[in-house]
């Protein structure tokens, strides 16, 4: 069973909750699909058994010797990545989308493409199973593609090691990497918090998972920070046909656990938070809502 944990936005406690689930009972394959800012490896310090590089895209580079500064490439670039400068025509590394058009139309063959291959995909073991995660090099695109690779790898690990449960800690937002994180999963868990922004982001995240028809559950984290808002969120969820499966109290021990590189279920197994999370996880695994 593949379960994706998403949140519409970062900082709602998605990784802390994923970490707690990952350290409860059965061995699991844990995948960190927040390839922009992978964090779970900090808690779990996995053994890196495999490291693969990932080509996140390409960038156009100008050969000064061949360039005549004719500027034809500038007029063709849809990304406004090419401009005149005192040194001649330059291509902005940050704006280039890697479409190859400038290379193709340059009459002097002065432009070539180079691979961005600084991104990495890691596979290894951690204390409760296997772990797969990606790290996208700063500024690179194609995170959706890297997420797909991470998930493919996770499925192989699940088969090879007989660990049936795959936990996916998803990226923030509602864009391509999130979609790549949830397509084909059995369940989506949206983590939200009782604030105006929390509800707003939840609505957008629920739209995305809803559009894929995936069974979706909601966890309200830090619920007691604003009980009234938590009630509002719960009512909204009911109207949308979404089950709120847990209201987790605000608990500074969750941060303490993180600082000590532990999940809350490892750090304070008897705390109220850990107990709620344990019950919630059981419910998720057994398909209760």
């Amino acid at each position, binding site marked *: 069973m593949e379960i994706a944990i998403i949140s519409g936005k970062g900082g709602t406690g998605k990784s802390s909750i994923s970490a707690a689930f990952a350290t409860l009972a059965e061995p699991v394959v844990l995948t960190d699909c927040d390839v*922009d800012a992978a964090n779970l490896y900090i808690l779990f310090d996995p053994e890196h058994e495999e490291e693969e590089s990932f080509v996140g895209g390409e960038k156009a580079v100008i050969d000064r010797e061949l360039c005549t500064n004719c500027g034809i490439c500038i007029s063709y670039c849809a990304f406004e990545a090419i401009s005149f400068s005192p040194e001649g025509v330059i291509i902005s590394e940050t704006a280039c989308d890697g479409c190859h058009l400038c290379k193709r139309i340059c009459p002097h063959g002065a432009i070539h493409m180079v691979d961005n291959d600084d991104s990495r995909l890691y596979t290894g073991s951690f204390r409760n199973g296997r772990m797969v995660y990606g790290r996208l090099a700063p500024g690179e695109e194609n995170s959706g593609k890297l997420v797909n690779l991470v998930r493919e790898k996770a499925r192989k690990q699940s088969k090879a090691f007989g660990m049936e449960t795959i936990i996916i800690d998803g990226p923030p937002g509602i864009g391509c990497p999130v979609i790549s994180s949830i397509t084909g999963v059995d369940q989506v868990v949206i983590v939200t918090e009782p604030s105006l922004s929390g509800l707003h982001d939840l609505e957008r995240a629920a739209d995305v998972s809803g559009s894929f028809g995936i069974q979706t559950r909601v966890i309200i984290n830090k619920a007691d920070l604003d009980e009234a808002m938590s009630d509002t969120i719960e009512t909204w969820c009911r109207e949308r046909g979404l089950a709120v499966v847990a209201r987790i109290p605000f608990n500074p021990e969750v941060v303490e656990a993180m600082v000590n590189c532990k999940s809350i279920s490892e750090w304070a197994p008897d705390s109220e938070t850990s107990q709620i999370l344990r019950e919630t996880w059981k419910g998720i695994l057994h398909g209760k809502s």
Partner: protein
Amino acid sequence: MTDHKPLKIAIASGKGGTGKTLVATNLFHTLISNDIKTSLVDCDAEAPNAKLFFEGKLEKSFAVTQQVPVIDENLCTYCGKCYEYCHYNAIFILPPARVIKVIEDLCHGCGACTVACKFGAITEKPMPLGEVRRYALEGSQSLVESCMKTGVFSPVAVIKAGIKEAGNGQTVIMDAPPGTSCPFIQTVDRADFVVLVTEPTPFGLSDLRQSVETLKRMKKPCGVIVNRTGLGNHALYDFLEQEDIPLLMEIPFERNIAHTYAQGRKLKDLDPAWETRFLNLFEKIILENGNSHHKR
């Protein structure tokens, strides 16, 4: 307040949830209540939230579009040149069956296929990616919101359009998107100074390291605001010292701050001293950025 060149300040964080919007909205509120002409641009186009903190009238909104190809099957010879030129696999072609399709979701709007087609079979049409909305607040202040359509491959074009809409003649605060990939880069690329909001935890430090590394490569000056101080450990402060990054402000980890923010209110409602603190923050940013760019 000293005279200063209008600055573009990006409030970024490496990752969501560290208090970026808290800082952006409070700084913006402080500046406008001190009559400093300012625009706030919400560049977190995937989850724009800044508007929730302000009362404003929608003044203008426009769709951000991208050009996608339209293929005229009567003119198409199924030569496959457009397919060859498309680097995003957005053109599907089966010449024997005389089938050709554009997969709009994969198209990046580079225009290569149009250039490739020698038979004039390809024209372009605009496809909506999202919307930019400008809200008028008190006086001449405004809030610009970039909002991406669900499922669009990248928010970059919508973010760029939002920043453009804010203009140049005044202070601009940009609430940046999380992460260090393209949307973040496109936002900070247009900033004069980047404020990184983080928290003193291992997750916070890890994300901060990545953001700092990226900004160094881009040669962008930056400073740090530590949110939720009192939590976590000292490693973050050691890192700031090591890297010689200015600590601009600290916000304590307090339940009533979280509560005030969650209700969509400003910190000065909690304690008027916050307004002074945010004004000091602005002064510090001008100082940090002031050495080479403008006179004080």
